[in-house]
């Protein structure tokens, strides 16, 4: 009986920590749900979170728009981990980080408000993640997760730009926290590679030196 039982890939209430997501891998072709792409991405993350190139390699004949969309979704979900870390023990609070800055060059406006304003960094982080979640789950722009309108794909760029500022703030103002998070997840590395691969951001806006060639560039400029 046990052999014929259908494998339910779901974490039911009461699942133990050891059992969490403890199911065998599937090939992409076997995944037949509408959320196959998400499932596939999460599966490759679980396999090896540090192997960012593998995670970002789409299965063959995968629609690029959906691929980008699902990845951005995943980034936003995981970024909540960083946001939580920032808030623990008041590491980043409105008194210490009054504005959203990375290097001292620019202060950024928080686009979550009708009249964008200069929110403190932690608020900016929360608002941006909320806004991104709203947009990515919006029925209007992304009614389907199987095919995505070209016009909606265009909206991903601005989400990326805003989300990246969270990384850069953490890197330049809460370095130890950032390193701890990055060691666990390699999220910034993955994100940097992602936006470079799909030309979603300009290289010199990627100010966190996380990839090898970026570090070289940083060393050169220091020298």
């Amino acid at each position, binding site marked *: 009986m046990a052999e014929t039982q259908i494998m339910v890939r779901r974490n039911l209430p009461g699942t133990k920590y050891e059992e969490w997501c403890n199911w065998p891998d599937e090939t992409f072709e076997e995944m037949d749900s509408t959320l196959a792409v998400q499932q596939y991405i999460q599966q490759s993350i679980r396999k090896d979170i540090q192997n960012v190139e593998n995670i970002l390699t789409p299965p063959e004949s995968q629609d690029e728009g959906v691929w980008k969309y699902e990845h951005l979704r995943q980034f936003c979900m995981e970024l909540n981990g960083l946001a939580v870390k920032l808030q623990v023990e008041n590491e980043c609070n409105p008194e210490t980080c009054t504005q959203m800055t990375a290097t001292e060059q620019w202060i950024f*406006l928080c686009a979550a408000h009708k009249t964008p304003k200069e929110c403190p960094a932690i608020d900016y982080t929360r608002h941006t993640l909320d806004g991104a979640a709203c947009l990515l789950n919006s029925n*209007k722009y992304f009614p389907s997760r199987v095919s995505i309108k070209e016009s909606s794909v265009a909206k991903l760029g601005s989400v990326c730009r805003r989300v990246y500022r969270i990384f850069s703030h953490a890197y330049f103002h809460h370095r130890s926290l950032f390193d701890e998070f990055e060691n666990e997840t390699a999220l910034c590395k993955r994100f940097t590679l992602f936006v470079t691969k799909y030309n*979603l951001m300009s290289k010199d806006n990627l100010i966190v030196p996380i990839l090898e060639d970026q570090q070289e560039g940083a060393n050169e400029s220091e020298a």
Partner: protein
Amino acid sequence: MDGSSGAGGAGRGRGGLPKLRELLRRQRRDSETNSESPDLEFIYDDADKYNLEISELYSYTEESEFYQNRKCFEEYLERITKQKWTDLNEAARKMHILRLLDTIEVSNRQARMEAVRSLLYLLQGFFGECDHEEDQAYWCRYHVFLLYTCGAFQALIELLNMEMENGLAASVALRKPAVSLADSTDLRVILNALYIMIETMRIDDENDSDEKKQLQTNFKLELGQPVSGEDPLAIVLFNMVTKFCSGSAPHFPMKKVLLVLWKSVLTSLGGLDEVHDMKNKKRADENLPPLTENTHAVCRHMRAASPPASAADLIEQQLPKRNYRGNNNKKGLVKQSSMEDPFESMDDEITREIEASKEGSEDDPIQPPSPRPETPRPETPPIPTSKGLPWIPKVRQKDLELFLEHTRAKFVGLTIRGDLNSMAGLPQPIHEGVKVLKQHLYTSLAEIQIKREEEISRNPLSMPETNVPVTPAEILYQAMLPNLPQYMIALLKILLAAAPTSKAKTDSINILADVLPEEMPTTVLQSMKLGIDVNRHKEVIVKAISGLLLLLLKHFKLNHIYQFEYMSQHLVFANCIPLVLKFFNQNIMSYVGAKNNIPLLDFPVCVIGDQPELTAESLEAGDDLQFCWRNLFSCINLLRILNKLTKWKHSRTMMLVVFKSAPILKRSLKVKHAMMQLYVLKLLKMQTKYLGRQWRKSNMKTMSAIYQKVRHRLNDDWAYGNDMDARPWDFQAEECALRSCVERFNNRRYATNGTDPEFKPVDNCITSVLGQHMDLPQEFKENYERWVEREVYSTQIDWDQLLKH
């Protein structure tokens, strides 16, 4: 009869023969110049040529800002790379655009605006490095697509949203005694960029690759969709217009807002050809035959009628024996323009009327013998296109029913409702008449929609509305619905302020804030320039509003007749009809021929190559057009709007009569353009019945132009009828009936998610009713015992009685 009246005329003229000759000579000269002046070679279209549409975006006072944009761009690029923009590859250019997009979100205003200006410079075609206009156009189009793929359009709209809410700019502008160009700098930069992107994307280019075409389609789709929030771009702009009109944001650059609004609606909803195709498609869906004629194609082949320019011409061309009549015709006709009855010389006029009607209505093959053959008869211009009428006659279902009802009542003596086929007892000519009527029977989409609406309201449960197709027009209507009346009022308010006849002092709103420089000109040349600029500015505003209103009316009419009725009713309530008439109550010839352009200062000419010194002569150089495209375009738009509002609406037609539109409209016939004349004639046709016999008989030429140019409605006695349509009219009743239909439609479709609350199931379960949460005021909660005491315990309730009901 001919002879007697001719003799009478001659007898009267005998008195001052030299005077008469002189008069004749003058008349002939008039008529010659008239018939010689060619038709205006104006082809009506969605908009003017691309480069002209772009140049109208800028006022001449903005010239210095072009260089500012260039400077921003070059400085910014220099900071990043030593390479020139032309040497960068596409990926590097994209990177730079993304960099700029990142910068437009910084909070430092100056840094932000420098980035936007850099983007604008790219959109303006990177003109600093161009030697020719073609280069500039090429770069412009290239950059529009490049920026769009980088997501710049969305970013710009977000920026517009933000800048619009900028309370500081508004409060600064409100405190100033005179708002000027400088107050709207940031907004203008953003609007310029948006306008260039929209207008460039609207135009198809045959050289475009498939990829670009795909992008273009996406763009059009995206334009109708909501941006960063709930509203599509058009609504954001509409809100800017109402905000401006309410006086809380006097610094909004209205011309640019209106231009972007008009073009965004035009691009997302589609222009003339699209409307025609969509209409045929919709008709096919309803199993109706397609339209065979395209209004614009037919108009293009029509010739303009020689206008009834002066009273003398009018008669001269109608009557071959004008040499006898010149004198007293003149007398009779001076009066005709004011629609009073000149009771003197009544007999004369009547005889003339009969003659005129003979000749005016058709080409009468029998020419009345002319006593003086040597006088040349003014030739009617040869009609190059097909002989016969330009339009296929139409018959409404209602007309046919009415006809049958009348004849049956007459011959059979009974009425059979809703039967269009049984012909028993009717004589042969009636059979034939019905056959012809049926041949030309035309069912409009509106009639089908109205019928369906009636069915739905009669059977709300068994015949619910099937899925409403989500067209761009439907999305726009839904978004406009909550504030549509305010939008209409605001647009008309600005239209009034921009009309050439309105006085600057009476304006409650100042629409010139975005032309006037901070410092007023000191030299004559400068003030001449500014004068032209101001007039041009107003003309462009009229053009944008008239284009926008017509476009909305056309699309809503196609989408659903009651959407159209809702909008038009609010236009009527906001006094659109007298406003348009007031607009035409000016020297329309000079408006159409106005030359408020300085070609040397038009973009991109003003930024490419060496700039010559501006002199009084060069202000006018290079403009030898016989008409002003935008003004003729606005005139036709306004006439069409008036037509749309009044067609088949008795009460509104009577408004045309009450506001004495006939002489105003008649003067507009002087513009020699077939399409413009057609719409004037249509307006005259619908009110002819009510203008009185006197008007008709002294305007025979106009009457025959109507006959010749306007579509015939069989059985419609528009010219001489005195039937029950002349009944005393009750404006209120008619409009109220329409209003209730529109309201029912809006309520049904948009208020309660499609179902009437009356027909929703009622909750009878006592626990669920009592379990519902009720919001009770705190005071009540604290004192409810007293309420129970007073309302329940102390009053006697006969429960048996209550349950019985």
